[in-house]
């Protein structure tokens, strides 16, 4: 899906390379079938998501049905089937953050970025995710931008931080231009 604009020979080359990387990863696991989740996590670490051909390769090499591999890949939230943006913003919606009004921060981020949770901006720059607790509940509500945690967030603080961040990274998208 992500390779639509690429010509066929380039696609084939990417395919082959990806399959090769999968085989390298598989070599690290002796008892492979039971390590399926870790294997998929390793693949994801490499590509930021799970490209279709890698799942096919895993199914083939481990002697599993493709549907079982897909089943696992879709069951677990840590595994993703679509590519992620270069940068990411994560908002915690866990109970501790929820009672401190993280829902309002959700509205704020959505209106700033123009995208909802689980999606990526059209230019593939930025992915926005929500999670159910990051384990830093004492300082909630928590927003994570490119791996850096920000505690005690408010809608107003979020707006200021995001507009600074978006300016710095030179992102422009519809929602931010409107302002």
């Amino acid at each position, binding site marked *: 899906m992500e390779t639509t604009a690429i010509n066929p020979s380039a696609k084939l080359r990417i395919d082959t390379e990806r399959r090769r990387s999968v085989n390298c990863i598989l070599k690290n696991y002796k008892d492979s079938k*039971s390590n399926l989740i870790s294997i998929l*996590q390793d693949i994801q670490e490499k590509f930021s998501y799970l490209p279709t051909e890698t799942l096919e390769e895993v199914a083939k090499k481990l002697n599993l049905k493709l549907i079982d591999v897909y089943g696992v890949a879709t069951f*677990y939230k840590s595994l993703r089937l679509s590519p992620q943006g270069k940068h990411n913003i994560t908002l915690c919606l866990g109970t501790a*953050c929820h009672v401190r009004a993280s829902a309002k921060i959700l509205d704020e981020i959505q*209106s700033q970025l123009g995208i909802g949770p689980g999606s990526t901006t059209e230019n593939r720059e930025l992915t926005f995710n929500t999670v159910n*607790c*990051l384990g830093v509940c*004492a300082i*909630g509500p928590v927003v994570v931008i490119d791996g850096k945690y920000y505690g005690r967030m408010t809608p107003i603080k979020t707006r200021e931080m995001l507009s600074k961040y978006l300016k710095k990274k030179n992102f422009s998208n519809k929602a931010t231009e409107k302002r």
Partner: protein
Amino acid sequence: MKKIRTKKNLEEYRKRIKKENSKFKKIVTICGGTGCHAYNCEQVKQKLRKELVKNGLLKKVALKVSGCHGFCENGPIVTIRPENIFYQRVSEKDVPEIMEKSILKNKIVEHLLYEDPVSRQKVTYLEEIPFYKSQKRLLLGKNGLIEPDKIEDYIVQGGYGALVKVLKLPAQKIIEIIKASGLRGRGGGGFPTGRKWEFCRNTEGEIKYVICNCDEGDPGAYMDRSLLEGNPHSVIEGMIIGAFAIGSNQGYIYVRHEYPLACRNAQIAIRQARKLGLLGKNILGSGFNFDIQIAKGGGAFVCGESTALIASLEGRMGEPRDKQHLHTTESGLWGKPTNINNVETWANVPLIINNGPEWFYQIGNENSKGTKIFSLVGKVQNTGLVEVPMGTTLREIIFEIGGGILNGKKFKAVQTGGPSGGCVPADSLDLPVDYEQLNAAGSMMGSGGMIVMDEDTCMVDVAKYFLNFLKEESCGKCLPCREGIKRMLEIVTDISEGRGKEDTLDLLEELSAVVTDTSLCGLGKTAANPVLSTLRYFRDEYENHIKEKKCPAGVCVPLLRYEILADCCKGCGACIKICPYNAISGKPKEIHIINQDICAKCGSCKTICKFNAVQLQ
């Protein structure tokens, strides 16, 4: 490093580390837990190191990076030993002053001390801070003294002494000790740990497994993370002892994928323990073999349930199976007898062995022994990790340790037990916290999340929140859970959006009963608890939503209406600037008006207005 083979070896090793440590005149510890990371503790650490180098003190002053101190709200935290000075909210620019006053001299940097909000007195030492004073930090206390990636630190504190003790005992004797201590599982159910071990030991089979459950899917709880992250060896030592008693040679620690630091620290700890011969073949020369592997969870709440966790470890989708007829202690991982315990349960084991079961048995109350760590969060002054003897009352935890409600608001309820638990109201504040009494109050102990709610929290919204969570997390294997929760969520959503009808609440109760009685695993069986407990204690709030179409707490957006009071508005324009939806109009110095058709009810204008002109109708 040579492997440790005997008790004598271990003691010699401990003595050697002690001697090496004695050359340090002072120990400066910076908290490196995830909470403090969010407050830039890394920069503080770098700066501390630079200052030590600059003053040529690297050989005289030890710099340590520890796990969570529990008071994350006030991080980053720096302590100085042997004086035991406790500094909080330390930033990079405070470091030269700390150096100057507290490291080079024996003075105190006043402005970094904790200030008691009631007496306005500065407090110098950890033990004197109200947040810590009433706690009994048997498990968490070591976090501040240990660098999680240095096994020496754990050993010098007496670590692995319990292991040496048990390797000489017959397995049954160890199980008797754990049984006599009264230890019960800290992962939620409260099953007696010694009995579980005994079942597993008594099941026939060559191969057996032990598992440490660090899935901690309960949102709002983070004590398991802080224990494994800050003191991984205490968990590992507990697991080795359990494995020896049960007769297992392989263990797993199942960690949530959102906990990268806990994974890393546990991984390093395992490697170090192997190097010293505390894990692997022929542990401490006893002939006993045991090793531990880390498995990263895939991110599904239901995988905290033991049979789903096992399915996940086997590389499958985390769907639970029926436990009524076949327990995991009989047939668990790959069909072998398997003993699963929670992180905190494992960490209690070395304490019990070292101090004796009688010592443990006298902590706590009638049926619940020892201490329990709670993650005290939400609308409370002092948020953080709190460890108290079982049976401590909610009031003591929330008001004495937690310092009461944030911003002087009124306490409404405390939620315990996560998505399987319930909300306990103000008139139950004197309830002693233990397994049975929380159950009787319609909630449960759970793994230890304690979320404090004030008058601004809407209980219908809380019920909706948990239903939404559970709808997402239901594995979908059985119909009552999959469809029942969805339907309950629709009903509660209707109520919160002003579409509730008179008979809705009866229907909700009926559905709750069905889902509870007919679901397969604990997730479904307890899914109705948040609804039932809020209905039990806060029925009037539901009725307000249904009959008057009002949300008294001002949370349920479709029922809200923000208005600007003409009498109070000064026309300062602050609200216009802040409104994200351009819903406010008005000329400078004139009365401003909110266009109700555009207003998204975000409440920003109410927060920003200095004249209290914006009111919730």
